[in-house]
């Protein structure tokens, strides 16, 4: 019995969430290729350089907000219902958050795309970070608000399922997948408060003319209060897959359930009090707070390094179950021709590289070398662009048959797709990192200046440009392959195939019975998280508002 047979209503919501996610991925990915060709000068015929920034805004919002969040909602709905073995409590409530998120996303997307059509009076060429005093059309902010509130309600839905299960199962450990969902959403509630305040109390009324000025540094700080933890909102669903599904794909079991819980608790605690590492070279923030953010950020390496151990150990266990032997030769026994496995494994491998380039970003004074250069997108295309995106795609290969009842179509395309993505991303990201070291700026339509010539650190600038264009094109090909497989699978059957994939997940080698009960004390961890945030942000925010909530103020400057 597949998931779609056991939970038909929830399977439908999972399908819709994943469909919206992958549609956003398709449009956002197309924009990405246009950008890669445009900024390298290879082909500028798609859009003008002014419209480049519209495309860039669309790329950021569709991929970093819409794609990631809808994918998370699909995966988490599946995970909660599966691990609690009960459907979500109210299909109508579930539908309402999905519709709210969808409407918000559509409003924001239409406002952004309006920038490409001169006859449309609305636009939002403000990029995914929408820094004041640049001002977008008020509808953009409204769309964002609806979207975020919808995601809050999704969390409520999963908590309700958990509370119902708890009534029937007092004293039992929270099933691992649900534990991960709940800790992720607690982190989300705490962190999205920052951007909610920024938009609801400042940017939206300001864009409607209800207030004259906002303090750009304050709104920027509120954004980055949210802007760092949001990357964990992207990463934790990927870890969710690596911990609970990848071991099974490898042929074995999760090495340690307790350590998985520790990792997610660490993310709940540490994700938010680090936001100043995005503002290392901002004026107006004293160095002491930047230093605290730096140390907190360095400790954020810990849960990821722990994950590396557990994930590799689980894969090794699986390989040995399949007959692998020797110190490293067991690697050969892993199912590298299975798209779901390959996608997750390659995503994890690439994440290791991304984590280390992130440590450079985190290195406070080292950040001077690469802030706002192309190094930064080089870094995050490895992390959200591969660790998250490729894992979600891999999960899609594994999950779609189970939520549609159709066998995976175009299997040979699926087999090569993760490798295509991996190669394309290596080429593009490697060149972006090198260009960043030379000082080439990010977020720029034409980084070729009359008065500035960049000096490459390793390799020449024009060779880097070519590599970015080639890498970006290969990535787009990889994206198209994925979409063909997924939509071909969804639309290619009537839901009654005998699917080959087995959705059951074996118990871990070291189960929850080996972990201290205190790990399940979500209230405690939330309280500690709030305290850490108060320590990291209390004084700086107080300093910023003490000279006036709206001062030093700037009026809106529409772009």
């Amino acid at each position, binding site marked *: *019995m597949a*998931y779609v047979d*056991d939970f038909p209503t929830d399977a439908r919501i999972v399908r819709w969430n994943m469909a919206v996610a992958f549609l956003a991925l398709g449009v956002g990915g197309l924009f990405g290729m246009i950008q890669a060709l445009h900024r390298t000068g290879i082909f*500028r015929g798609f859009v*003008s*350089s*002014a*419209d*480049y920034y519209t495309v860039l805004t669309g790329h950021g919002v569709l991929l970093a907000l819409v794609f990631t969040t809808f994918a998370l909602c699909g995966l988490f709905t599946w995970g909660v219902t*599966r*691990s609690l*073995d009960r459907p979500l409590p109210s299909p109508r409530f579930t539908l309402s958050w999905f519709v709210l998120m969808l409407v918000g996303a559509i409003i924001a997307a239409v406002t952004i795309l309006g920038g490409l059509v*001169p006859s449309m009076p609305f636009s939002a060429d403000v990029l995914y970070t929408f820094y004041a005093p640049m001002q977008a059309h008020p509808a953009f902010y409204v769309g964002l608000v609806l979207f975020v509130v919808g995601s809050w309600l999704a969390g409520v839905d999963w908590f309700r399922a958990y509370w119902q299960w708890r009534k029937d199962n007092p004293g039992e450990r929270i*099933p691992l997948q649900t534990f991960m969902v709940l800790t992720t959403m607690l982190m989300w509630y705490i962190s999205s408060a920052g951007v909610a305040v920024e938009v609801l109390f400042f940017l939206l009324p300001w864009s409607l003319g209800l207030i004259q000025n906002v303090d750009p540094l304050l709104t920027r700080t509120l954004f980055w209060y949210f802007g760092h933890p949001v990357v964990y909102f992207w990463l934790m669903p990927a870890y969710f897959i690596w911990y609970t599904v990848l071991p*099974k*794909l490898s042929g*074995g*079991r999760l090495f340690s359930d307790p350590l998985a819980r520790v990792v997610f608790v660490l993310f709940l605690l540490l994700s938010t009090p680090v936001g100043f590492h995005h503002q290392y070279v901002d004026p107006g923030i004293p160095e002491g707070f930047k230093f605290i953010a730096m140390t907190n950020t360095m400790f954020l390496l810990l849960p990821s390094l722990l994950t590396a151990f557990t994930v590799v150990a689980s894969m090794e266990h*699986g390989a040995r*179950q399949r007959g692998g032997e020797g110190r490293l030769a067991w690697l*050969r026994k892993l*199912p*590298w*021709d*299975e798209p779901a*496995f390959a996608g997750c494994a*390659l995503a994890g491998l690439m994440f290791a*590289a991304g984590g280390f380039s992130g440590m450079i970003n985190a290195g406070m004074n080292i950040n001077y070398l690469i802030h706002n250069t192309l190094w930064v997108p080089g870094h995050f295309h490895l992390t959200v662009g591969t660790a998250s995106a490729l894992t979600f795609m891999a999960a899609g290969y594994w999950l779609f048959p189970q939520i549609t009842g159709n066998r995976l179509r175009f*299997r*040979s395309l699926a*087999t*090569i797709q*993760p*490798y*295509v993505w*991996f*190669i394309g991303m290596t*080429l593009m990201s*490697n060149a972006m990192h*090198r260009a960043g070291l030379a*000082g080439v700026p990010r977020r720029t*339509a*034409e980084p070729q*200046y*009359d*008065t500035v*010539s*960049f*000096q490459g*650190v*390793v*390799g020449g600038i024009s060779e880097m440009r070519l590599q970015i264009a080639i890498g970006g094109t290969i990535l787009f090909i990889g994206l198209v392959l994925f979409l063909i497989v997924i939509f071909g699978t969804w639309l290619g059957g009537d839901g009654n195939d005998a699917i*080959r*994939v087995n*959705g*059951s*997940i*074996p*118990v871990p080698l070291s189960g929850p019975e080996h972990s201290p009960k205190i790990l399940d004390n979500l209230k405690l961890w939330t309280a500690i998280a709030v305290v850490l945030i108060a320590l990291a942000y209390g004084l700086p925010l107080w300093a910023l508002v003490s000279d006036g909530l709206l001062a030093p103020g700037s009026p809106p400057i*529409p772009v």
Partner: protein
Amino acid sequence: MTDSSDDSSDETATPVDADDTSDGISKRTLIRLLVGFGIGIPLLVEGLTFLGLLEQQFGGGGDAERTSTATDTAESGVAVGDDLLPETDRSETLASAVLREVGGDRWPLSLTVEVDNSGDTDYEFQLLTLHLDDDRTVGGRSSTDRLDPGERRVITAEWSIPAGATPRAVDVVALIYPDGEDAVETIERRVELAKVPVRGG
């Protein structure tokens, strides 16, 4: 479907189907190709970069060459206050160059030239086609019309250029009218312009 502990779920879901792979390649060969290229090429790229970094740090000419990141073009081109055609004995001074960023696909560029016919005969000065940095051009025509000796006129030429394009040069024509029956002396030049900063809204 809760976590199950029966043995059948320990195996990976998909059976070993050698003939399910494309063109009858064996599973083993397929994996070797995929992993070989798929991970091999990236490892090669990263390895070369790493070697390059080591060489740059420890080998190479050291960092004695504090490499310049500025180009030489800053000082060339006609800037505001300069004469557009120094070769004539009349003065054609670029009084202002304004490029404004406005919403939409095209931005207005306006060049204002102060022409002083300090010669003995009639004179005319025209601003024609504008050349952009990507070799595109925008047509236009602005003329002082025929100026008497001693007359001075200010003309402003406007071009609507693609948003984000950079003005590189402008075609100018100077017509020196003769006293008698001689032919008009025509001077046609493409004058390079210094950078015109874009002004925001």
